[in-house]
């Protein structure tokens, strides 16, 4: 089932499901940062350089794109430079997918596009016309967690948790691809996801546990 949403003009970073007036951790940090910049501008006694840049530049080229995210059809107009990761996080408020390296080297941004795991940081949003995207937010069935989400909890497969959404989405892909015959095979096929807490042993166990149940 997919529901239709009208063209999004949601100002970042407020999430789609959050009341616009309620301050979230993200809007609070953003507001504080802007306040800090204004003070700094006042100290040097001039207008912020950023203002000149914005005034001088033409509006960057944009495109309109319709895609399905976790079963919901969305239509947005985005700056062509927008990555899928930024679209998810900054336009749709889906902040589960994480920005680690922003260069395809860490896997924290992993999502499924048309069922295949990809790095959303290296995916240009404008190229996703008609695509079906699944993020960590779309994995559970209502309140029922996906088996791999449960396995991560049961195996205690994370510490700080920053890489976890990417690990789980990558693990879903890995299981679907069938590369789970041994711990060694899982390690190799999960190598695109870095965990700086070093939870690899338990991550492998969680993937193994979930693959075994299928």
């Amino acid at each position, binding site marked *: 089932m997919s529901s239709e949403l009208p063209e999004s003009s949601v100002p970042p970073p407020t999430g789609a499901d959050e009341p616009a007036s309620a301050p979230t951790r993200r809007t609070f940090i953003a507001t504080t940062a802007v306040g800090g910049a204004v003070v700094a501008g006042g100290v040097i006694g001039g207008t912020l350089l950023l203002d000149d840049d914005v005034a001088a530049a033409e509006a960057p080229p944009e495109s309109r794109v319709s895609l399905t995210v976790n079963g919901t059809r969305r239509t947005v107009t985005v700056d*062509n*430079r927008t990555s899928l990761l930024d679209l998810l996080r900054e336009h749709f408020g889906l902040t589960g997918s994480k920005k680690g390296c*922003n260069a*395809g080297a860490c896997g924290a941004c992993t999502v499924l596009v048309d069922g295949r795991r990809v*790095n959303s940081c*290296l995916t240009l949003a404008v*190229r996703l016309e008609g695509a079906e995207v699944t993020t960590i937010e779309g994995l559970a069935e209502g309140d029922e967690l996906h088996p791999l989400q449960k396995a991560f909890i049961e195996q205690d497969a994370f510490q700080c948790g920053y890489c976890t959404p990417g690990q789980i989405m990558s693990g879903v892909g890995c299981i679907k691809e069938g590369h789970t015959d041994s711990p060694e095979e899982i390690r190799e096929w999960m190598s*695109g996801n870095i965990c700086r807490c070093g939870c690899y042993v338990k991550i492998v166990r969680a993937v193994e546990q979930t693959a075994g149940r299928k």
Partner: protein
Amino acid sequence: MHPFSFTKAATTREALNSGRRGGRYIAGGTTLVDLMRETVERPETLVDISDLPLREVRVTERGGLRIGALVSMSETAAHPKVRSLFPVISEALELSASAQLRNMATIGGNIMQRTRCTYFRDVTADCNKREPGSGCAAREGFNRMHAILGTSDACVATHPSDVAVAFAALEATVQLLGPDGERRVPFADFLLKPGSTPNREQAIRQGELITAVDIPALPRPLESGYLKVRDRQSYEFALTSAAVALHIRGGVIREAKVAAGGVGTVPWKLPAVEQHVIGERPSDALWKAAAEKAVQGARPLSGNRFKVDLLKRTVERQLRIVGGTR
């Protein structure tokens, strides 16, 4: 990232029209988007070619392969015919990048990818490949990962691809389509050594499109495989690598195709190694003597002298893995 306009080509003709006007083709985008973010690449127009009908892998009449330019790395590696006819291609692909990147990246894009030299990626560093005439920071810099073969005063960057090493070994051909029609370029002539123009990396003309990579038929039975040596076991570029394919009949090596990666400014074909083993019977002594020839002409830099011995050992080991010691 600099702003750019975006268009998606519905047909090959549309793509070529956009390409002729200076549009930059994008397929998997794993290199291009990354380098655009670093402002190393600054295309004004991107032409999305992902809808073009270049997604087929097929066996040619004589038992070679044609791999469409838009087949992903993961699809190519998993293809039953690739696995059975040329395991060296599947192995090279599956030892590359990560599962996510292999799902995105294509065969055409793989051979168009640019070097991972850190000075090339750093727009504040001198780099003749990025900014002709600015110098080469790697020559006297951190050059442990850099090339020992095919270098010039202007550039010592390695070509990063693994599957390109297999393509070089197997003497593949790149099929191109441009405004003036089709053209075939031997793989050995497609990727260019830096010389005095390291900014020119491929023998491809403005607006030309890679449509396929052709692997020629080789006599059977053919054993082949790829060995990659690196700082960590997975998801890392090669320090050294070797692609080997051998046709052995009646206990004698009748045909040999060998190339090395991680050591050259382009995938490094090793004809002297091939010639040394053809007509001989597999043995430990043969592999060792042949591998000595892999480093002919090597010119190590301050930080990568170790690659000379490592390359010999990599080639020797892979010859033994593929050819055995009957």
